[in-house]
């Protein structure tokens, strides 16, 4: 038998047939929607008089527009948000789609709750009109973001017509130093290989450093595959994957579980499989990494100076660096350390799961954030929030001076509602540092939740020391 990559196996399992000119008809197992872009697909289908034949495979959540204040309701700080919420509710109900609504204890950010509820499973295809759907590739599943019209297609026909992306292996040799997290690994990769290094590829992450990551760490890593430009990210299935999935609400049970285990055994790349491209990274050299510019490719180690436009050969990268320095109000050659911050944000589908909050709580315990800093924590799901509260983590955050919110996307992105201030500098556990992403002219530095917490305490950009984390 010919050796295959994990990606090729997943592709073949889901190929209904080959159409002309390298296009394949690919079967879609699960579809996730949210009130911001999913609502448009549902309205579009309705207007066209199309039906959704298999609503049982479709799920929807309220995460993007809904407020994250306590006692929230359908009114939103985002202008006209209520319309999205109400329309989503009406349309999902009409179509028979399971909605995780406001007040539902399974509500949360789509890419957090899909794994949490066992909706994503190894070996499945899952699409969602949201680019960070690649998060779920951590389960050895092919999960990727699509547009709203493509979503209509998947909803109405259960298939998509696709050209097969190329495959890339990113192999991490050795293990990471203590204090280096999944977020640092992915920022390091994108910082070295640009925000478009992965365009056209499905990237598989492998190596000892990846084996060692928890499932939640793997999700953080895969979450930012799209920030690398990739079609999606993937990690092979191992015992950790299976242990995570077992017993979750929508995961198979009993006999079906046994059959599933059987088909998941093979969800890895054959050792002699060939990839279209390979990148090898020495995990030992990865340091806590932080973005300095306005795309995730503009990220550096905490210990390195901010680059100068002259450091880039490519004229595009050069002019991008120049613009970024000006937008971020930074000087080449300076260090990120000691850069005063105005706000700290822990949340988003990248880094707001229980393990993230647990690690941060160790750093925040018995500490106070700097008085000039506004700090906010938004748990990734209502369940994460509830479990954190059971462990008393909320108290630690609140005592340190953090706001403790209801779950949702919140200030990961600015949609006309809540935002960080004009030219405010924010250290953020999110995934995008684009201009204006968190507010008009807001300056975002993305980093691990540990770095966010340490910076909030210091009042300037700072990393957690071993002492902080061991307390």
């Amino acid at each position, binding site marked *: 038998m010919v050796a295959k990559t994990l990606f090729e196996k997943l592709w073949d399992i889901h190929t209904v047939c080959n159409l002309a000119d390298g296009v394949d*008809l690919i*079967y879609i197992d699960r579809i996730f929607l949210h009130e911001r872009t999913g*609502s448009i697909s549902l309205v579009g289908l309705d207007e066209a008089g199309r039906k959704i034949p298999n609503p049982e495979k479709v799920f929807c959540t309220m995460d993007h527009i809904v407020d994250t204040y306590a006692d929230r309701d359908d009114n939103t700080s985002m202008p006209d948000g209520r319309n999205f919420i109400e329309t989503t509710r009406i349309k999902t109900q009409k179509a028979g789609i399971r909605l995780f609504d406001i007040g539902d204890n399974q509500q949360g950010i789509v890419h957090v709750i899909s794994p949490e509820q066992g909706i994503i499973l190894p070996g499945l295809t899952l699409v969602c009109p949201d680019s960070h759907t690649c998060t779920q590739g951590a389960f050895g599943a092919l999960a990727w973001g699509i*547009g709203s019209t493509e979503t209509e297609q998947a909803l109405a026909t259960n298939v998509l017509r696709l050209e097969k992306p190329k495959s890339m292996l990113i192999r991490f040799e050795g293990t990471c130093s203590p204090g280096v997290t999944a977020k640092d690994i992915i920022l390091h990769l994108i910082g070295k290989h640009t925000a478009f290094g992965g365009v056209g590829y499905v990237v598989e992450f492998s190596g000892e450093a990846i084996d060692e990551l928890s499932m939640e760490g793997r999700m953080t890593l895969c979450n930012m595959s799209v920030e690398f430009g990739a079609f999606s990210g993937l990690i092979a299935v191992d015992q950790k994957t299976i242990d995570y999935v077992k017993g979750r609400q929508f995961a198979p049970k009993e006999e079906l579980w046994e059959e599933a285990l059987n088909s998941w055994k093979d969800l890895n790349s054959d050792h002699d499989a060939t990839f279209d491209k390979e990148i090898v990274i020495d995990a030992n050299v990865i340091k806590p990494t932080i973005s300095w510019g306005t795309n995730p490719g503009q990220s550096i180690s905490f210990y390195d100076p901010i680059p100068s436009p002259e450091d880039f050969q490519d004229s595009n990268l050069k002019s991008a660096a120049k613009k970024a320095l000006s937008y971020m109000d930074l000087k080449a050659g300076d260090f990120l350390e000691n850069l005063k911050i105005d706000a700290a944000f822990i949340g988003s589908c990248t880094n707001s799961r229980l393990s993230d909050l647990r690690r941060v709580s160790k750093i925040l315990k018995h500490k106070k954030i700097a008085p000039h800093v506004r700090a906010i924590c938004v748990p990734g799901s209502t369940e994460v929030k509830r479990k954190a509260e059971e462990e008393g983590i909320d108290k630690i955050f609140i005592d340190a001076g953090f706001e403790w919110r209801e779950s949702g996307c919140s200030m990961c992105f600015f949609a006309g509602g809540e935002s960080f201030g004009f030219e405010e500098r924010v250290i953020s556990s999110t995934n995008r540092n684009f201009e*204006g992403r968190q507010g008009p002219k807001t300056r975002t530095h993305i980093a691990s939740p540990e770095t966010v917490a340490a910076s909030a305490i210091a009042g300037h950009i700072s990393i957690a020391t071993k002492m902080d984390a061991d307390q």
Partner: protein
Amino acid sequence: MTGFKTVISLAVPLLRINVDTDTIIPSREMKQISKKGLSDGLFAGWRYLNEKNRILDPDFVLNDSRYQGSQILLSGDNFGCGSSREHAVWALHEYGFRVIIAPSFGSIFYKNCIRNGILPIRLQKNQIDKLVDNTITIELKSQKIDKNIDFDIAPADKNMLLLGLDDIDINLSYSNKIEEFEKSDRKRRPWAYLT
């Protein structure tokens, strides 16, 4: 969607890399559950000095009087990266753009273009630089710019654009194959189905 016609127009040079979809249409401009009414918010963060009052920034290239009515946009690597929002394409289309030329594109954005009557053309940077400030002719059928520069596009994408086909109808024409697949797949992967 009507089929793609030959475009003859001056090209607007927005020669930056990594122009993301948040920039093309900021979230705050996506106010309605609709694919229409978005062109006003196109590049809002760059186009307006004062977004509220819609006071134009004269320094932004789209506001340059020479480029009014232009249907072609030139840009840098990774155009349309970031968020999957199809609004970016709807806004560009409504504004009047029919062709975007860049060395590379965000992959979701590229697909969204094909579905919405915009032709995304991948071209080397040095070739793009030569197109600046010229009135150029784009013919999809022959895959040529100004009759002499060839560009690549997948045949299926080309067909969709030329004929303005509907995705769902195309997929449904394979209904028999899909049903057959489901039947045997249910035996192979019973655990993957929720009913």
